[in-house]
């Protein structure tokens, strides 16, 4: 049996889905967190019926007449796939609006059960819902639930299974899509009959007062920066950093390698395997896992912020600034999601109706440092900038700058005409739920560990082998002649204008495209296995390769060139091949140029000597400048020919 969950954005569908299936999909309190349908088996705990039940979570929509591409999924799925029963989640806090979609769903001829969610809020507001009356009006069962507390779910499922077996009689008149006002009249009538409104003015007033401060025209943005700085400082240098230092120095620096060494010696296995495990796997994976506490603290803080209702306000604050670069507040949502992982971030661009705005957002979203880039930031911050709390937050500020400048540049480089409108629902502020934050934290940690144990482990093994052996599979006399060494040497040429020398940075950067954490683990392996000295000592063995300026440039290079392959795949899905190439070229160009500028200018200013590769850098800079100039001119001419006003929005 298949049960589909349908309802408005932010009515609690994903929360209900996670509770019913035991999955941990990303839920959020703004529209567009779920952009694809997801399906999973009902948890055994809830399945008291002797049949297998599949629960399908559909993206939220205000209506089944589609407005954005993810809203179309809901209708297409229901019409084409015929689930056995629809659980329509009605947001008790937005009763009347939710019923609009309910009347549409009832007409589809598939049995419907209504889950009256957020019943705790209904009671708190002293709204009185006459459930029997509502059941008579709509001709389907209505079950009050509170999804966040898992209340009322057995009754809901029992009702769903019961009605799935029998066709439902339609008690409301059928209304065509065109007669939208008639439908609203019907909904108003049903609501008036079955709900007596209590009073929620106090809560509303409180949210208004908070909004006047947090979403203020002038102080909104500085407050946002302050909040973000606090979160990242706490995660990277504060509690998260403290715990990660312990993990890196003690646990993966001494305890685990020593234990593994002893264990492997006791087994008396072949030295080749012994070294592979100790220097490749343990050192590499350990280097990444060491950053787990940092990831946990960060996602815990971000989940608290999101659950409080603040993140939706950030979209509002950014809207006005984003409009200047041809985007809107809608673009900030993929970017905030992207701070966890660029893949769901890129996919979240589906909520943007305007195709140009969607493309630009897809290209810019990977610039937001994701969770996987965090270890790289933390590593370089600890080794090269001990006692400087500005390094990690500076990466996020730089990301915002790159997004703003990148947006402006893309607007100038490509034809542009925007028609989209910005309308965003804002949840009321509330005290964030600790349970939710802990769940989010565990979800991200699980994904992080899983990745370390699979793709990173495999990659580390490969990196170790490639730095030990040369192309004819003989042990390399010197690392520089190994497989990895020769690949790195080719890249060294490209990286020289960035002030980088040696083959190791290029080799590490390449492995980063498989998973960004690999940059850290590869450096750990290449610099001689002992994770401890690489990862935590200021001026440790990493200092052979970088000085603080080139380290910062290398960090920028890894953060602002294209994301990992998986994220590039997601970009391809949203952009198509032609725009993917344009996007990737743009990302490479931006990351490379930025790293080059930082390295060259930084060296001149701080060390009074140019970094190596200065002449090449000047040539590249000049060529790039000329290219941009010509391209912008030609686009402007084209735009004029087509009579598109580039600045029509301002």
């Amino acid at each position: 049996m298949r049960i589909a969950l349908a309802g408005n954005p932010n009515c609690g569908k994903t929360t209900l889905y996670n509770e019913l299936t035991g999955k941990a999909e990303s839920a959020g309190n703004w529209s567009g967190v779920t952009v694809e349908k997801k399906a999973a088996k009902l948890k055994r705990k809830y399945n008291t019926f002797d049949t297998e039940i599949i629960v399908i979570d559909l993206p939220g929509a205000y209506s089944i007449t589609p407005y954005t591409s993810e809203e179309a999924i809901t209708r297409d799925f229901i019409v084409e796939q015929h689930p056995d029963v629809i659980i329509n989640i009605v947001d008790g806090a937005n009763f009347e609006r939710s019923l609009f979609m309910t009347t549409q769903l009832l007409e589809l001829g598939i049995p419907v059960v209504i889950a009256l969610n957020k019943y705790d809020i209904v009671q708190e507001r002293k709204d009185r819902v006459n459930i029997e009356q509502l059941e008579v009006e709509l001709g389907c069962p209505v079950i009050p639930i509170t999804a966040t507390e898992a209340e009322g779910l057995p009754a809901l499922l029992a009702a769903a299974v019961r009605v799935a077996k029998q066709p439902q009689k339609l008690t409301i008149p059928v209304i065509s899509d065109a007669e939208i006002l008639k439908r609203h009249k019907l909904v108003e009538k049903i609501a008036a009959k079955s709900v007596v409104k209590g009073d929620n003015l106090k809560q509303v007033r409180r949210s208004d007062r908070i909004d006047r401060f947090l979403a203020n025209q002038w102080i909104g943005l500085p407050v946002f920066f302050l909040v973000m700085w606090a979160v990242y400082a706490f995660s990277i240098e504060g509690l998260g950093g403290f715990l990660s230092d312990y993990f890196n120095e003690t646990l993966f620096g001494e305890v685990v390698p020593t234990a593994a060494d002893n264990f492997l010696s006791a087994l008396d296995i072949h030295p080749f395997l012994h070294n592979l495990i100790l220097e490749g796997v343990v050192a590499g994976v350990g280097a990444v896992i060491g950053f787990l506490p940092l990831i946990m603290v960060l996602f815990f803080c971000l989940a608290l912020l999101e659950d409080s209702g603040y993140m939706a306000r950030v979209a509002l604050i950014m809207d006005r600034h984003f409009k200047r670069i041809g985007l809107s507040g809608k673009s900030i949502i993929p970017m905030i999601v992207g701070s966890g992982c660029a893949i769901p971030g890129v996919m979240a661009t589906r909520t943007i109706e305007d195709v140009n705005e969607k493309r630009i957002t897809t290209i810019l979203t990977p610039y937001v440092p994701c969770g996987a880039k965090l270890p790289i930031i933390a590593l370089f911050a600890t080794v090269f900038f001990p006692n400087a709390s500005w390094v990690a937050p500076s990466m996020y500020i730089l990301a915002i700058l790159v997004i703003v400048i990148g947006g402006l540049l893309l607007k100038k480089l490509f034809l542009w005409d925007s028609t989209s409108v910005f309308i965003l629902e804002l949840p009321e502020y509330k005290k964030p739920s600790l349970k939710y934050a802990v769940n989010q934290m565990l979800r991200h940690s699980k994904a992080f560990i899983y990745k370390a144990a699979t793709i990173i482990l495999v990659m580390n093994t490969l990196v170790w082998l490639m730095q030990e052996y040369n192309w004819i599979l003989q042990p390399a006399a010197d690392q520089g002649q190994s497989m990895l060494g020769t690949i790195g040497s080719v890249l060294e040429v490209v990286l020289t204008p960035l002030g980088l020398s040696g083959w190791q940075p290029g080799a590490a950067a390449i492995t980063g495209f498989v998973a960004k954490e690999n940059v850290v683990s590869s450096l750990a392996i290449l610099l001689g296995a002992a994770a401890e000295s690489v990862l935590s000592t200021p001026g440790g063995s990493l200092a052979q390769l970088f000085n603080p300026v080139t380290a910062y440039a290398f960090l920028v290079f890894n953060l602002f060139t294209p994301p990992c392959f998986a994220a590039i795949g997601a970009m391809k899905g949203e952009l198509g091949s032609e725009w993917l190439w344009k996007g990737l070229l743009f990302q490479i160009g931006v990351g490379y140029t930025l790293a080059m500028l930082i390295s060259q200018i930084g060296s001149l200013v701080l060390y009074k000597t140019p970094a190596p590769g200065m002449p090449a850098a000047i040539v590249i800079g000049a060529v790039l400048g000329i290219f941009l100039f010509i391209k912008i001119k030609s686009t402007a001419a084209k735009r004029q020919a087509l009579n598109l006003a580039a600045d029509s929005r301002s």
Partner: protein
Amino acid sequence: MRLSEMAIGCEGIINNVAGTEKVQRFLYSIGCYPGEKVTLISILAGNYLVRIKDSRFAIDRKTAQIIELGSVEQTIEDDNLNHPHRDSKQAQL
């Protein structure tokens, strides 16, 4: 009067929603349709913060300009509505 011209704290009844069919349909589906009430709570970061039915929406200026209102009256007594240039306590269209 348009929504973009209404004073903060006022409630108006929607007369007409202009704009393309797609935008209109979306606005209708969130409850913003002729005959329904809309309250302007605040103007934040250049967006109009309104209450429609039980929900709070941020609507950009461009969209606020296409929402036309009939009778408008002040409903929220104010704590600190400090927008001197918007002092129409009651306006008729």
